[in-house]
């Protein structure tokens, strides 16, 4: 009756996996080319505002002519509550700087020292002076603009005269 022949005790043929490494290597090379290395994960939450026609920072990153500065609410809820009680809602995060006390977290001196130290560390690698090393501020959309201008003032004092306001590049229209 049945039109389908029952397969006898023949085992299923094995799948040839010899081209698997090739496929995986292809994927690997794609990701190596298409991505850029991550900087440190900030301990503050930053939701960047959206904007159009923003410049791409990748070339500056490749030449390490850019430093990142974060401005947002602390990720740690208990910490955020503690600082809010003393009137500090938005806080600075500078990469690779361990901040433990409130003074460290929002201290204008910290910016100057951080920027100068970073510049001294990579001085031999770059050809440009400190005035053209960009300081990229990644601020939360709810942050007060006054803090941005505080940062500007500090950078001005050490002649670091290039600032960038980070946004999420979104194609409008």
């Amino acid at each position, binding site marked *: 009756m049945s039109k389908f022949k029952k397969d006898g005790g023949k085992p299923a043929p094995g799948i040839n996996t010899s081209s698997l490494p090739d496929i995986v290597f292809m994927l690997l090379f794609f990701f190596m080319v298409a991505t850029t290395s991550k900087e440190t994960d900030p301990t503050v939450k930053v939701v960047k505002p959206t904007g159009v026609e923003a*410049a791409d*920072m990748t070339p500056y990153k490749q030449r390490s002519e850019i430093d990142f500065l974060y*401005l947002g609410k602390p990720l740690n809820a208990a910490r955020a509550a503690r600082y809010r009680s003393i009137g500090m809602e938005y806080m600075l995060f500078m990469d690779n700087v361990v901040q433990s006390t409130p003074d460290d977290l929002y201290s204008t001196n910290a910016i100057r020292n951080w920027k100068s130290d970073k510049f001294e560390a990579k001085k031999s690698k770059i050809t440009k002076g400190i005035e053209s090393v960009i300081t990229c501020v990644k601020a939360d959309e709810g942050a007060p603009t006054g803090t941005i201008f505080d940062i500007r003032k500090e950078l*001005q004092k050490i002649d670091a005269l290039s600032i960038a*306001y980070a946004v999420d*590049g979104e194609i409008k229209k």
Partner: protein
Amino acid sequence: MAKRDIPEVNAGSMADIAFLLLIFFLVTTTMDKDKAYVRNIPKLISTQDVPPPIEPRNICAIKANAQNQLMVRGEYMQNPDEISEKIVEFYQKNEIKNDGLNSFPMYSKISKKDIEISLDQAIEQAEAVENTPDALATIIEFKQRQVAEWEKKLTAIEMYGKETLPEIHFQAHIRIEVMKATKYELFAKIQSEIEEAIYELRNDSSMKIFGESYKNILSRYSMDEKLKDKEKIDLLKILYPDRIIEVTPKV
């Protein structure tokens, strides 16, 4: 000696190694690119001199208060998307023909001959300063920069291909005045609108003069600096300069 068979290398673990590398790269890298608006901070100078006054027609003031309300050129604005249109108007109102009655910046039309005369004068002055004993380094630098500027204009007008080069008043600028409590979101929006307006102006002009988009020229310039794109970009920058002043908020 007897010929021996070379044993085949077992490549079965190759995939494992590749996977391991792949996952390492997936974890340590990021796809999204950092995008930002680059601005210059003015150099700190200590001077008691009062700067010369600026005619109000040369200022495109964008103000935002602590309640995140906008005012552009003295008019209240509900929708921040309209800022770019105002900026375009600020640049283009007097571009074709100066009208002394409106409140927009004046344009000057400069001919090639005028530029050549000014360039010669600038070179002469620069040489005079350089030959003066104990001349200040900043003054020498300033004069040299002037020479470079006139040289740029000379190449620009050759590139432009017309009798005269229209130039907006040298004081015309965009001024951002925010308050300390203004949300960063609105500040970034203002920056975005400025960038959008200037891109639009330069792009339209680029299409008219060179028949290709400004973005095309910029991306080609970033790949190869040897082509004539530097001059093209300079011309567009002279036609529509992006002079932006961010005023430090007091309150």
